[in-house]
């Protein structure tokens, strides 16, 4: 399958092999009314094997989530069969409501409708800490 097989839409490329379906779920792509293809174990010069997601529509993608899940991902925006934009995601400085704080003493465990916010505290180690109690998120 080639990237240009969709006319207008988004291709999420260079996903670590076997992670495509997880990203499909997290991005809630099942709720879209357009066609969405998840290709697993595609050949990749860079990664050996990779997953690809093709979305037949231009939608807003939460780049922070993708950056957190896999900073190697690239995103191609396709218009009239051409790649008009290419994004490289990176580790976001802050992630909101993607991971939950597991510290039972954290205020997020009781405060109504408080967003779970994690802040990047060490880029090299990919370490995130809860904004409120500073507990380290263990992957």
């Amino acid at each position, binding site marked *: 399958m080639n990237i240009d097989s969709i006319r207008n839409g988004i291709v999420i490329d260079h996903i670590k092999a076997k992670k495509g379906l997880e990203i499909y779920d997290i991005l809630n792509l099942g709720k879209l009314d357009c066609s969405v293809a998840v290709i697993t174990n595609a050949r990749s010069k860079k990664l050996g094997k990779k997953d690809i997601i093709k979305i037949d529509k231009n939608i807003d993608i939460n780049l922070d989530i993708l950056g957190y899940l896999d900073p190697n991902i690239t995103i191609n925006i396709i218009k009239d069969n051409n790649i008009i934009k290419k994004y490289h995601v990176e580790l976001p400085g802050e992630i909101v409501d993607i991971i939950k704080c597991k*510290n039972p*003493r*954290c*205020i997020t465990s009781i*405060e109504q409708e*408080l967003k779970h916010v994690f802040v990047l505290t060490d880029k090299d180690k990919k370490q995130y800490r809860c*904004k*409120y*109690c500073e507990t*380290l998120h263990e992957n």
Partner: protein
Amino acid sequence: MKNLIDIKDLSVEEIDELIKVAKDIMQNPEKYSEKCKYKKLATLFFEPSTRTRLSFEAAMMELGGNVLGFSEASSSSTAKGESVSDTIRVVGCYSDIIAMRHPKEGAPLVASMKSTVPIINAGDGGHNHPTQTLTDLLTIACEKNRLDNLTLGLCGDLKFGRTVHSLITAMSRYKNIKFVLISPEELKIPEYVKEEILDKNHIEYKETDDIEKYINELDILYMTRVQKERFFNEEDYLRLKDYYILNKSKLENAKKDLTILHPLPRVNEISTEVDDDERACYFKQVMYGKYIRMALILKLLNIK
């Protein structure tokens, strides 16, 4: 500076300024006795802490202000299920500044995000207690006349002791600071404190489980209590609570101008025979706590 949630919110310059004002208050209390006239401090203590609450209330009273509040969650709307955000919005209508203690870590930060008046974190679980650290810094500044070129011994519960972690964070910003970390194996300082504060700032430190080993090198000895509420297992608590008891004989080789500190309350980790030693400064430390809180209230209310 609108709030004080974490000691890291304050720059070294801001801390220096607070210390300068606190010293001036100590020397000229009458000059400050009406600075907060008609101002109200709300002390919201969602968990009991008589000492810290009284310190804040005394500080506000000495500035000529008034205080209101509660001393445990059961006497607040929290017992009815009210959120921290709502409580703080309501109390902000009645007061000019809020000092808040809460058992949940991060609660004062949440409060500061919703509050219309300045918030002071008066302790959030095992997380932060910045006014204790300010108290420690003022005590050291007054007793030693400097905050640099010091060797600090930190003794006891270095694992759960939030005062110790905050003090390390704060002191690591001054020149030529060395630490001696004295604790049993089970209560050693967490690795992340070593990596993220000590190693990152190239601070020299030694670890030992023997309180007397390096006592002759210390300028400050900061004792801490092994806190029962931090243990899930009572057996571990009972085994470790009496590990260090500072007494006269252990102080034999210590410097003549050593300063002994303790955030209080103590249980038995400092024998009462040490109380009369000139080097024991833990009750003076309580007094310094009131003065630094006065300086902080003035700063947050923007009163010169």
